């Protein structure tokens, strides 16, 4: 049984569904085990989250679904949720005796398929197989969306000069759909199709990051990555969803980093989804790093939030694209006016993944997108991006992801020697998305920056809008990153820079938090790799990236993003943080 429901009783699906239950309460563990067995499921129990992760990693594709309690001693259930989503892409169900709306929302934001309240009834467990099934279907849809986004991006992006990025969505879609359907049927029946579930091993993830870096963050797109990776059995959908997660992960990391990095003290504990622009404090954070970039980057972070309100991670891509476009506009519009973040709102990017607790450093929206996301933290961004992060205020509004961005920003700072790196022009969005990869790459330090810049963005000509975007994408990365390989964050940071989004700083924040996580799984050399490369932000046409970029980064709202992008931000470079121990 390798893939899918490799169960001897696959015909009688859902019988034989392989469930992994994680709960520190032995009484509940016993009860759940019994209940699941009665449903004819194949049950494995675990007391600890770490143990669960090990099990999952050891037996890739050995489980179909994970059920986990929210409160566990060794690791927060939400964190486990992220990791599982990132590394294994399995549906996860959360459980708790606490049914508070905020908790449930948090669960959903982090990607939980469902949230059960204890005491759990057997009938609730009987139907968990639907989540497995649904996820498959969504994967297909996500890919399709990505394609659409790409198309949109290309249309929107003023300077989507990167034609490579735009792949024909239609073609893809149809192709994807076909493949997927085909696979899907097979999956349930005979696990012969490889498509069933891709387990992103460290190696695979590294390939992924490598590919992303090679392509250039701003140009990255599932198809390109797939081609580069040259892994026969991998499909574009796999890559696409992985990319999305990666971005989320990065953004989450960035947020965390932001938090840690005391950036301009932007504390946006909760980004009001409604006010994307303003809250993207992360932008500021980004600017932190970049110095220059910061200004440019208006973290569309807030945008993400706003948009993302409805779109959860999945949709993040979609939204990001739109956000990106907006961001671009915003960015270009007025560097000094990060508040234009309005466009960022479009980042429907689901911040969910972002646990932005970090306060985004307010970056200066004014800074020219010089996020040079170079690997070496040459804060090119700094150059002129002097993001006046007014984010301080903004951050508070920033969605929780904000903090992430901050961190990133910091990193960027070090690197932005050429703010233009972020040539976000038109590709801001992509840039941001790319940024994620940067995170991983940044291991060395850039990570904290809006990562994208660092690695890929060598040339961020951020003047425009893209800056913001970069960061946004990070969100997903954070979550995702943990398990995936450090995708080349080829952050098209360069793009970002060019767009001058004030994001520049924003991008950082994303990275920052991601760094930590990234290091966790990125293990290392990716970072250097990615960062070093010029992060060419993919055009917006690559929704994948966009999605990744935590939109809070992009938040054009920067209405006042004063992200104090000071390159010295201590955004922890992703380089080590990514991998979760």
């Amino acid at each position, binding site marked *: 049984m390798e893939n899918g429901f490799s169960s001897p009783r696959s015909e009688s699906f859902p019988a034989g569904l392989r469930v992994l239950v994680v709960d520190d309460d032995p*009484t*509940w563990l*016993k*009860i759940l085990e019994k209940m699941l067995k009665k449903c004819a499921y194949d049950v494995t129990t675990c007391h600890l989250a770490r143990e669960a992760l090990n099990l999952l990693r050891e037996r890739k594709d050995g489980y179909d679904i994970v059920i986990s309690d929210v*409160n566990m001693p060794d690791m927060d259930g939400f964190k486990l949720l992220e990791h599982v989503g990132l590394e294994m892409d399995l549906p996860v169900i959360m459980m708790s005796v*606490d049914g508070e709306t905020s908790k449930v929302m948090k669960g959903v934001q982090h990607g939980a398929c469902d949230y059960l309240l204890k*005491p759990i009834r*057997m009938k609730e467990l009987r139907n968990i197989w639907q989540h497995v099934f649904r996820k498959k279907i969504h994967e297909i849809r996500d890919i399709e969306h990505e394609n659409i986004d790409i198309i949109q991006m290309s249309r929107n992006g003023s300077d989507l000069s990167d034609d490579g990025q735009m792949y024909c969505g239609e073609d893809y879609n149809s192709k994807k759909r076909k493949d997927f359907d085909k696979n899907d049927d097979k999956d349930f029946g005979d696990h012969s199709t490889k498509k069933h579930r891709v387990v992103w091993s460290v190696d695979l993830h590294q390939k992924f990051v490598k590919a992303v870096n090679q392509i250039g963050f701003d140009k990255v797109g599932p198809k390109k990555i797939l081609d580069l990776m040259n892994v026969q059995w991998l499909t574009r959908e796999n890559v696409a969803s992985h990319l999305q997660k990666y971005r989320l992960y990065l953004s989450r990391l960035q947020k965390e980093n932001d938090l840690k990095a005391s950036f301009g003290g932007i504390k946006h504990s909760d980004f009001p989804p409604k006010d994307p622009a303003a809250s993207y404090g992360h932008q500021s954070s980004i600017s932190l790093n970049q110095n220059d970039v910061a200004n440019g980057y208006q973290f569309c972070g807030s945008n993400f939030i706003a948009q993302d309100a409805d779109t959860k991670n999945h949709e993040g891509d979609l939204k990001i694209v739109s956000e990106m476009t907006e961001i671009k506009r915003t960015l270009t519009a007025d560097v000094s006016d990060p508040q234009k973040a309005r466009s960022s709102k479009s980042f429907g990017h689901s911040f969910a993944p972002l646990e932005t607790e970090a306060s985004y450093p307010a970056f200066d929206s004014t800074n020219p997108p010089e996020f040079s996301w170079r690997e070496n933290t040459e804060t090119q961004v700094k150059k002129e991006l002097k993001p006046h992060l007014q984010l301080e205020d903004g951050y508070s509004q920033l969605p929780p992801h904000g903090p992430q961005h901050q961190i990133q920003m910091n990193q960027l700072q070090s690197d932005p020697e050429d703010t233009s790196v972020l040539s976000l022009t038109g590709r801001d969005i992509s840039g941001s998305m790319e940024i994620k990869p940067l995170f991983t790459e940044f291991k060395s330090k850039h990570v904290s920056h809006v990562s994208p810049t660092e690695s890929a963005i060598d040339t961020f000509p951020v003047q425009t809008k893209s800056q913001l975007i970069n960061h946004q994408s990070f969100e997903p990365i954070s979550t995702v990153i943990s398990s995936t390989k450090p995708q080349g964050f080829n952050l098209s940071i360069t793009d970002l820079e060019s767009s001058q989004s004030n994001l520049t700083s924003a991008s950082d924040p994303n990275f920052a938090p991601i760094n930590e996580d990234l290091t966790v799984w990125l293990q290392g050399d990716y970072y250097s790799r990615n960062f070093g490369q010029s992060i060419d932000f993919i055009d917006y046409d690559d929704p994948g990236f966009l999605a990744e970029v935590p939109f809070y980064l992009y938040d054009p709202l920067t209405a006042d993003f004063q992200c104090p992008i000071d390159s010295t931000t201590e955004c922890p470079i992703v380089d080590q943080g990514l991998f979760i121990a």
Partner: protein
Amino acid sequence: MERNQMRRQLALIRQSFFDQGFLDEQFIQLEELQDDANPNFVEEVVTLYYRDSSRLILNIDQALERNPLDFNKLDNYMHQFKGSSTSIGAKKVKAECTQFREYCKAGNSEGRCMRTFQQLKKEYAILKRKLEAYFQQARQAGPLETACRSRN
């Protein structure tokens, strides 16, 4: 005869648990899970619960001795305890947990927290005694009687 009588008695005792609010629906769920593969499932679960929760009670006791009280920590413990108590359907105990957590959230009612916890421990102990007696009687009455319903 005697056995039948015992069984009837057992059934009454069991019913009283529900009527008096000691146990709730969850207990019935446990009974339903009991089958040939696990003929003593309910008793095993209850035993496990008491064993695990006694540790929690100790932690809470210790935490309550601190000054000032760390309400966050207490709330955390109580959250775990509540989760555990829901597993066997310990209704009264659960209610005390909820009350305790309310006080913790208020953060300024040490006295109330203490008193609630005392009450909680009392309910906890009462239930324990009752269940132990119940299971013992069930064993005496014969395996069929451990739960009113057994399902395969």
